């Protein structure tokens, strides 16, 4: 069957009234939480995971798709109306968007961000549907050695390639890998690093770690640095509709942003930010009025916003087809799959096509819903921005602990949440990235399994790891991902890389 037939089947699943309701709840919650300042897409997904615990897998993943896209939309509203320095997911949107809002053009800025996100989401999700079967066919020929090489590449791009320090990226990654060791070894049943504590035998929960690092770590860091006093919300004056000139200046950046963002998200390159920075500089180069950049150029909102959403959809390509999470958000989504015993990857396409294609179709449905939800109702979301910081962070902590208690109401689990929260604060304080810790935790045990499987098949012969051209290419790329940035930094070109930093989602 070709993609379109499969996608049509997916729509049959997604259009069932109950699933439409799940999608609507998902996008509404996702937008509402994503709009809150200080909450990026990764935390939105982690905080809302407990809402989906009691649903069936299909419905839960559909709601999840809505939450994911909703969180992305919500984040752009925040960065346009509130120049949040800590918010990483759409820094670039804030550059021009906040300037537009200050100049009284907040409405068109929100509109071009929403419509651009819609266009990008639509094209990128279709592209996902088109290329996924091809990658799945290709991935079915992968053995454990190729998977292991792929995971090493993902480790290195997520931790070392971008950001301002190879050392701190790698340290964060290995911290995650060390946490991934805790618990019962999958192949031999031996307990590792559990120190005789029964609660540790199941290992460290990805959601506990993610919620603690993002929510509690962020709360502690904001509280300690008194960053919360100075923010100013720009009111949305006048119409949210775009003028003819706005349209003609926006549509090309939307398309360019999409075509820049999607491939970057789809490659195991980690993070959505790289695409937004590239799109911003492309638009600046091509703009008819480059002097407007820095003072509120609509192209500088339209392009990066489209790139942001396109790479969010792109991230789903390695996640769904290979089971490879390349961002913290994707790692949490993978945990969401695993709670139902579903392992994303080529076999999921073969065994549960209705779930995969239902999910992809739901992404398209969610995208339509978000356009409707965001354009006319933007005033409602804006009100969420004016929640005072003390209530906001108090509420964030209530929901952060709620998720953990709901999954496992034990004092020990809350203790881990607190400990990881303090860890998150320390990591932030010393400039360590957060995403590699989460990715390391979930991907580490998977990489170990593939490595041991490969060596078991070859009867201990380690050359099997470089036995196929694909594995060799992937490993060479992984080495480059560490070495090239080190050389660039040594030559004083580190600024480019830290500008491209793949940060927290």
């Amino acid at each position, binding site marked *: 069957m070709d993609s379109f037939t499969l996608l049509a089947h997916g729509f049959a699943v997604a259009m069932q009234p109950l699933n439409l309701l799940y999608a609507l709840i998902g996008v509404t919650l996702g937008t509402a939480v994503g709009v809150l300042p200080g909450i990026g897409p990764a935390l939105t997904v982690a905080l809302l995971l407990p809402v989906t615990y009691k649903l069936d897998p299909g419905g839960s993943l559909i709601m999840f798709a809505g939450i994911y896209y909703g969180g992305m939309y919500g984040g752009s509203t925040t960065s346009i109306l509130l120049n949040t320095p800590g918010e990483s997911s759409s820094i670039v949107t804030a550059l021009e968007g906040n300037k537009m809002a200050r100049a009284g053009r907040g409405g068109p800025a929100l509109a071009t961000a929403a419509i651009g996100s819609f266009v990008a989401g639509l094209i990128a999700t279709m592209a996902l549907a088109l290329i996924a079967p091809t990658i799945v066919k290709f991935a079915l020929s992968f053995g454990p050695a190729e998977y292991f090489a792929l995971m090493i590449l993902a480790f290195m791009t997520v931790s070392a390639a971008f950001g301002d320090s190879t050392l701190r990226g790698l340290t964060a990654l290995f911290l995650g890998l060390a946490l991934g060791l805790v618990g019962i070894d999958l192949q031999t049943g031996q307990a590792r690093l559990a120190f005789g504590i029964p609660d540790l035998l199941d290992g460290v929960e990805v959601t506990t770690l993610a919620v603690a690092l993002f929510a509690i770590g962020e709360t502690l860091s904001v509280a300690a640095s008194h960053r919360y006093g100075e923010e100013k919300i720009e009111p949305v004056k006048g119409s949210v509709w775009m003028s003819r000139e706005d349209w003609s200046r926006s549509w090309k950046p939307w398309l360019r942003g999409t075509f820049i963002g999607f491939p970057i998200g789809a490659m195991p390159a980690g993070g959505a930010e790289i695409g937004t920075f590239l799109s911003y500089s492309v638009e600046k180069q091509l703009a008819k009025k480059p002097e407007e950049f820095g003072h509120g150029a609509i192209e500088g909102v339209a392009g990066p916003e489209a790139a942001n959403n396109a790479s969010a959809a792109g991230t789903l390509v390695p996640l769904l087809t290979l089971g490879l999470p390349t961002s913290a958000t994707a790692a949490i989504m993978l945990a969401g799959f695993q709670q139902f015993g579903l392992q994303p990857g080529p076999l999921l396409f073969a065994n549960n096509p209705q779930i995969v294609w239902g999910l992809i179709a739901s992404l398209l449905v969610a995208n339509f819903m978000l356009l409707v939800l965001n354009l006319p109702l933007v005033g409602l979301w804006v009100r969420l921005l004016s929640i005072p910081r003390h209530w906001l962070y108090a509420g964030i902590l209530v929901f952060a602990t709620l998720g953990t208690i709901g999954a496992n109401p034990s*004092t020990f689990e809350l203790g881990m949440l607190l400990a990881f929260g303090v860890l998150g604060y320390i990591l932030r304080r010393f400039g360590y990235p957060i995403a590699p810790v989460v990715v390391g935790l979930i991907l580490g045990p998977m990489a170990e399994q593939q490595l041991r499987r490969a060596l078991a098949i070859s009867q201990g012969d380690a050359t099997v790891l470089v036995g196929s051209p694909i594995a060799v290419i992937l490993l060479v790329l992984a080495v480059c991902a560490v070495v090239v940035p080190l050389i660039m930094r040594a030559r004083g070109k580190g600024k480019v890389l830290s500008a491209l930093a793949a940060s927290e989602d």
Partner: protein
Amino acid sequence: MTQESPTSETRRPDRAALVIAAIIAILAAVIVYSTATAHGGSATRIGPSAFPYAIAGCLFVLSIWTAFEAMRGDFPAREEQEIQPVIWVIGGLAAQMLLLHITGFSIATGLLFAATARGFGKGPLWMTIPIGIILSFIVWVIFAKGLQLSLPAGPLERLI
């Protein structure tokens, strides 16, 4: 950042970063110790201890690298921090953890809510604690009754 900046000559060793290097080294040692003292299970060629040893080895290297950068003062500059708000928030989380099974979800979480608000400078507690408890109770009703999550009940929750 690792690139050379004009001030890097004058920077002094970063003590906090040296402590981090030491903690990473200790973490590596704990992994090695715990793996070496575990028994059984290594019937396969590459057993359950290979990966931990590899990770511990890498952590040792990273620890030395961190110490090296700490000596050169290569860590990014840090903002001034206030410790009191951090203590309020951590205290709130600890209180919730300890009280959860004694007082139930609403009261324990209400205290967390009030302590966090206090950390962000919002008081007084006699006002924020009741607000927190009422809010947590509403959350409990929605999630425990509506979505069937198992949230511990206390005296307050048993009223309904």
